[in-house]
């Protein structure tokens, strides 16, 4: 290696004004837009299932909500004289999610008002994407529950039962109106009422979506598929939905309810040999209602869920517990929306108390022991 290289004149390099920035000089390909549009893609199976179950109405409500959400976001950003960033898809996600928690046959203004509240109040008022504490779609939904209760909480929900599947868009097919599975459960929360419920809607109906309910929540299978798309694309962390769903199952399995002045269900039933029925009830709770929609698409909203892995588990467990409490003891048949909103409120605190241990330091407990 010590041979003397000869002296040689090299052609001079002409460099223009160079761009200088702080390291790193590379960025990963994923951007906010890519993540948001992936979420939209992951919502597509559930959307298809919705059109299948509710007909063209589902598409109508969804499009209205999306259009209102995008328009509101653009208007807010224009008013604030900011760069309009609706192309990143985050308003689209909010619109779709809001529509997904509404019945298919609401008046046109319900999704529109919901979207405006969701974007203007719950998101842009806080400074836009990344700054909101609460999931905008859920704030929109909670607001609608408050403002248009008669339209949003129906006693009977319309849907196209399985025999009408031959006609996709539902024209010429009579839709039927029935109580949602969770509303039926509300009337008879214990395992005793389960058999009757099973005759009305089997587990298979729940998985495929052949039940009344809100637009996006009916097909557990389609939602699971979407959830897998999100996990595969690292848009969500599997821990949070897993913790949430598992907590709901365990809570329903163990928590007793009061029927006719006496406790039944839960561990009470299990102690009395009703373990199988209680298991079936827990399973039913998983697939009925908006749990999958909430667990995969709403609780996991990056902006409003904890940032650390441990925090995500705490969030999932908390939300799951609240879902079970509201479903079993509360005034509403479904509690996913409120459970997630409540945990959203606790998110800053969860983040604060689940900070990871810094490399090369000890946890406080270990440090005290040492």
């Amino acid at each position, binding site marked *: 290696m010590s041979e003397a290289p000869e002296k040689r004149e090299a052609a001079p390099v002409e460099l223009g004004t160079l761009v200088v*920035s702080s390291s790193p000089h590379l960025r990963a390909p994923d951007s906010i837009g890519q993540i948001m549009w992936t979420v939209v893609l992951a919502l597509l199976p559930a959307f298809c299932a919705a059109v299948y179950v509710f007909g063209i109405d589902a598409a109508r409500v969804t499009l209205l909500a999306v259009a209102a959400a995008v328009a509101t976001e653009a208007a807010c950003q224009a008013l604030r004289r900011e760069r309009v960033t609706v192309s990143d898809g985050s308003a689209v996600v909010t619109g779709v999610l809001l529509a997904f928690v509404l019945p298919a046959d609401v008046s046109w203004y319900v999704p529109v008002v919901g979207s405006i509240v969701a974007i203007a109040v719950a998101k842009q008022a806080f400074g836009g994407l990344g700054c909101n504490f609460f999931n905008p779609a859920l704030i929109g939904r909670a607001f609608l529950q408050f403002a248009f209760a008669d339209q949003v909480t129906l006693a009977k929900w319309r849907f196209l039962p399985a025999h009408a599947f031959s006609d996709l868009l539902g024209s010429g097919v009579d839709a039927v109106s029935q109580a949602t599975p969770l509303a039926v459960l509300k009337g008879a929360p214990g395992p005793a009422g389960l058999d009757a419920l099973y005759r009305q809607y089997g587990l298979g109906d729940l998985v495929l979506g052949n039940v009344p309910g809100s637009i996006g929540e009916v097909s557990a299978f389609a939602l699971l598929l979407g959830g897998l798309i999100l996990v595969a694309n690292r848009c969500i962390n599997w821990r949070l939905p897993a913790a949430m769903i598992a907590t709901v199952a365990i809570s329903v399995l163990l928590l007793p309810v009061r029927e006719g002045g006496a406790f039944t269900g839960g561990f009470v039933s299990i102690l009395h040999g009703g373990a199988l029925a209680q298991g079936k009830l827990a399973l039913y709770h998983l697939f009925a209602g908006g749990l999958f929609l909430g667990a995969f698409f709403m609780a996991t909203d990056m902006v409003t869920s904890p940032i650390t892995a441990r925090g995500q588990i705490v969030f999932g467990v908390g939300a799951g517990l609240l879902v079970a409490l509201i479903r079993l003891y509360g005034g509403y048949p479904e509690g996913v929306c409120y459970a997630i909103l409540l945990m959203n409120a606790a998110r800053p605190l969860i983040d604060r108390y689940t900070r990871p241990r810094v490399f090369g330091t000890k946890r406080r407990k270990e440090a005290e022991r040492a």
Partner: protein
Amino acid sequence: MISLAPPLMPVLAAADAAPSPVGTVALSILVVGLLGAVFGIILFVASKKFAVKTDPRVEEVLGALPGANCGACGLAGCPAYAEGVVLKGLAVNLCAPGGAKAAKMIAAVMGVEPGESERRVSVLRCRGSRARAKERMEYRGVADCRAAALVLGGPKACTYGCLGLGTCVEACPFGAIVMGADGLPHVLEARCTACGRCVDACPRHLYVLAPEKRTVHVLCSSRDPGRATRAACEVGCIACKACERACKFDAIHVVDNLAVIDEEKCKNCGACVRACPQAIIGDFRKMRKALAASARSATNAGGEAAAS
């Protein structure tokens, strides 16, 4: 059932006997009065038992301070300074924003002499606006002078000059610095309180707090040799010493490639201002008007830029 009624029995009986409005009112007054007395006694005892000594002068001094918590006094905020004055005997005229007025009030509270305090203002010692000072690179990153200064010294070819990213504008608690359309910050002297935040914020140490009546300043900080300075900026000190020759009072000298004014000797005559070929020695009496106008247009331009 236990009842507090027995001691009140006679009154109660009277009230029963004559259920007149007058009786009810009298009874009400009596009851409220008695309860008030009981609570009063309890609070009196408690105030003795839990008494805490406080110096009321701390609050008074605090009231005399502007409350901007700027830290110009060298302590962490106004309450700390108030405590410092009362308990540690700090000087009463350390509050620059409050100026002579605050010093006088504090002195009155403390019963001492207010001492001298001359009004000072902040001066930016650079005129290297975007059009006049060359940039050597296209900087991309955090829009903050201190952050940019860490990336190979920032985008300006002159490593002594203003980076123009407005860290001082952000730092000023009184809104006395505005970013001009020319890419240089401008001090609005009427609002400046000489708190020194900008002096600390500027990574290039371009700000200096000078007495308001001093009107002649060297508005360049480059210590590069003349040729390098000229290559980097149209308005840099090229160490030509024309000012030295022009000064009748031996008050200005080129030290380390940069003209420096000896404040003791300077009479603000402006001879150096006229002599400087680079126009970097400024006479504030003349410049003030222009500065204020440019700052106004800058504020307007800023608003329009945000609007578009």
